[in-house]
């Protein structure tokens, strides 16, 4: 039962019940379950489960082939490790397991999905997680983000209790199931791609313009600038002349002044 999730029954119990059912079906045609026999099976199974837990907790070290060794071998993910420690605490010889991030495709971000490293010591050179009965320790020896002011400083080691880790993991899963966050990375990459394409098109247009615009050609440029200067000079004088003398005049005089 130890290696099974809660609510699942040991396969041995199933086999025994099936055998009883077959016997009963051949005999009196009923279901074939005998109360005493069932009780015996369940008690035996409970006893065996209790024995297993006792064995696990009573073991002093992990030797190959023992029950505790089997338990350790069955732990493959961070979640399984957490559930193991949540169940057994620090009463077993398994005091901690090391995990690393689960490799995921580039378009996904799953920071709470972990897999155990086992005996792979190289996995501990970079970023890794140590899960124990107390909590999860996140060790990152990787350098900080390139371009940041703290480029050479490693990220600090972080500790989270098992309950905090589970809460954050659950929240993360809930949030990432929302459409906005679910498609965020794809949307971000698409936006980046779109921006790059637009910039490339803009550059191409700019180059094309600089190559083909008449006024930018060396033969025309000096004259173009000079013509602009002359036209600006032309604009400086308006067709309406503001009377310079402070006086009151007739309408006719005013009109004549403008001629």
């Amino acid at each position, binding site marked *: 039962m130890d290696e099974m999730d809660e609510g699942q029954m040991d396969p041995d119990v199933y086999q025994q019940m099936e055998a009883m059912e077959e016997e009963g079906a051949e005999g009196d045609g009923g279901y074939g379950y005998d109360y005493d026999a069932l009780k015996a099976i369940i008690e035996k199974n409970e006893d065996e489960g209790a024995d297993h837990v006792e064995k696990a907790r009573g073991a002093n070290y992990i030797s190959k082939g023992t029950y505790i060794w089997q338990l350790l071998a069955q732990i493959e993910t961070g979640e399984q490790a957490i559930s193991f420690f949540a169940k057994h605490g620090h009463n077993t010889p398994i005091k901690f397991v090391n995990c690393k991030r689960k490799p995921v495709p580039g378009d996904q971000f799953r920071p709470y999905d972990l897999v155990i490293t086992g005996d792979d010591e190289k996995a501990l050179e970079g970023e890794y997680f140590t899960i124990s009965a107390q909590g999860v320790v996140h060790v990152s020896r990787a350098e900080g983000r390139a371009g940041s002011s703290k480029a050479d400083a490693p990220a600090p080691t972080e500790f989270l209790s098992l309950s905090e880790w589970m809460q954050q993991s659950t929240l993360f899963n809930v949030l990432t199931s929302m459409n906005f966050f679910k498609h965020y990375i794809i949307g971000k990459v698409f936006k980046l791609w779109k921006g790059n394409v637009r910039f490339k098109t803009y550059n191409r247009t700019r180059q094309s313009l600089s190559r083909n615009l008449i006024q930018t050609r060396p033969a025309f440029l000096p004259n173009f600038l000079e013509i602009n200067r002359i036209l600006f000079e*032309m604009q400086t004088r308006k067709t309406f002349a503001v009377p310079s003398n402070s006086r009151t005049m007739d309408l006719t005089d005013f009109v004549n002044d403008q001629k």
Partner: protein
Amino acid sequence: MIKAHYTDRVDEIITGRLAELVTEVTESRTLKEEEDLEHAKMGQAAKHKSMVLQKQEDALKNRVLKLARRNYQSLGTFIRLVDYMVVETQVIINQESADLILAEMAKEQKKYGIQTAVSYAAEGMSFEPAKSEFITQFEKILADMQSVTEEVNRVISHQDFHHYIHGLISDSGPRFRTIVEQSEQYQDSKAAISKRINDDFEEL
């Protein structure tokens, strides 16, 4: 006087800039062959170049001639561009002049004024010159301003450029008067001037 100012500037563009440019670009289409010059060196030993150097020179010459031909073909477009720029300047001058009248009218403390005589009668007041006369005269001033600007020579009308712009335009290009009459900004300024005169008379 003001007309002379505009005409001089446009003439400077036509004769001083464009005509020179046309000559330069036209001449740049033909390069003097060095070999021809070398043949002219009578009695002197001709220096022979290596084939590689000759090829490089030929490629460079071809490139320069190609650019020169391209520039020559663009002359008509450039002349049209300058013509558009001149017309745009005319439109700007006209608009800014109309705005200047309006700004002068809106000034609180004016150094000058235009006088009108007021007559009182049993039927009410009458003005001499009347409001309508003021409006008519100001409209005339605006029309004269347009005429002064419009009478400046067009770049594309110059006979030396006909050859280059032939086939590039179907009519006479942008028309100053059409642009001004269709300009909402100018029409607004014109209406504002009439309204200002009207309001001033109403206040009396």
